[in-house]
């Protein structure tokens, strides 16, 4: 059995096309961030990190949703495919969310004057990060593959339902959530909006690309492991 055959999505051309499209969009997004988007009047150049901040947080949210949906599918269908999807998505989501927190902190220091504050959005992001961490820990400590898959799927579902409640309850105490730009933040320069959209699209593709590659590696690992026995 050839290992490559274990990946049901492995169409060489599509893979290449996705790679180049992602690369082009990321480069374009970076260029637009630095040269196309106008400098924000109040915050200055530091605001530019926000495009990447939004990109990572958006992709992390998509990743978390993928984990949730794949987990439901796994519980219903019990095919390993869905578990692999959920796990790989969680791993990438964790990476993206870590980047979100780091870029957010870098932005917050000059603008808010602090690296961190317990604002509802930050609290929720932090808890989402912890939930991802526990999800990955649970997988490493659960035992057999079937149990691991089932337990982590259940945890992911409960965590997904929990998160909106966390957000609502975090808003009780400190409702200072600053809307920097976007809906509710007043007018936004069209050039900024275009940059944001390109970056968001770029990160979405990056997520899909990483996810597919991670699934491929995972399938190879499984194939090697089963062949080794």
């Amino acid at each position, binding site marked *: 059995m050839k290992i490559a055959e274990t990946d049901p999505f492995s169409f060489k051309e599509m893979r290449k096309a996705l790679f180049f499209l992602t690369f082009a969009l990321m480069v374009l997004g970076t260029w637009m961030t630095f040269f196309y988007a106008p400098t924000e009047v109040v915050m200055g150049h530091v605001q530019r990190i926000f495009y990447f901040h939004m990109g990572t947080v958006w992709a992390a949210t998509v990743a978390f949703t993928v984990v949730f949906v794949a987990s439901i599918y796994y519980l219903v269908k019990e095919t390993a495919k869905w578990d692999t999807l959920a796990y790989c998505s969680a791993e990438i989501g964790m990476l993206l969310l870590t980047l979100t927190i780091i870029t957010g902190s870098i932005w917050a220091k000059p603008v808010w004057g602090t690296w961190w504050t317990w604002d509802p959005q930050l609290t929720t992001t932090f*808890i989402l990060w912890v939930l991802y961490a526990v999800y990955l*820990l649970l997988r490493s400590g659960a035992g057999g593959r079937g149990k691991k898959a*089932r337990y982590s799927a259940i945890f992911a579902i409960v965590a997904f339902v929990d998160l909106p409640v966390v957000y609502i309850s*975090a808003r*009780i105490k400190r409702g200072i959530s600053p809307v920097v730009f976007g809906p509710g933040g007043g007018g936004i320069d069209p050039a900024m909006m275009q940059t944001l959209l390109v970056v968001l699209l770029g990160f979405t593709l990056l997520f899909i690309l990483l996810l597919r590659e991670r699934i491929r590696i995972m399938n190879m690992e499984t194939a090697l492991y089963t062949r080794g026995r």
Partner: protein
Amino acid sequence: MKEILLIFRKDLLVEWRSKQIFPTMLIFSLLLLLIFNVAFEFRSDIDFHTISAVVWITFIFSGLLALGRSFSLEKENNAFSFLLLIPVSRSYIYLGKLLSNLVMVIVSEIFILPLFLLFFLFDAKGLSLMDTILPFLGVTVLGTIGFVSLGTFFSSMAVNTKLRDMMLPLLVFPLIIPVIITSVGVCSSILEGRPLGYYAFSLQILVCFDIIFVLLCSLLFEYLIEDSGD
């Protein structure tokens, strides 16, 4: 319905005869209160919010201690397999377990509360029964339902993982953040003597949390304990 009560009765009977969990929980809570008192240097000027935080940390830590035992007890002599033989939906088993855990945790909280009032609020001027104590107890029950529902659920998961008891707080703590925020908030508002309207929203969230997670957990319990070999 009958089965839920049977499991409930069985658990309380086991506890009544073995007297393992309940005394441990009480002493543990007492020790936590002592530690908090020492850490605060026996001060008497602690504000109400801190006091509420202390009491909830005590409740949750000692509660989780009991919940951790809830399913590891069933593992002894493979009792859980026999529990699964009851010809009813698995969610009944969860609800029975939830009920017995709830009663145990709430009873221990009722024991702890007077002591806690004694240690932390010794200079409070006559707390009124109707305005403070009863609402406080009510919130305690609601908050306890919140964390025991998830605690019971994940206790049955944690005992089957390699990390066992270490896994339970990891699974439960991040999920019960809303319970902690709302319960502590409402309790401190009650101690401050604020009107119901001031904390009604928190109370609503707490009630919603209880309903959502009792339902979700009893729904998912079926998947949690599939008796496949692994």
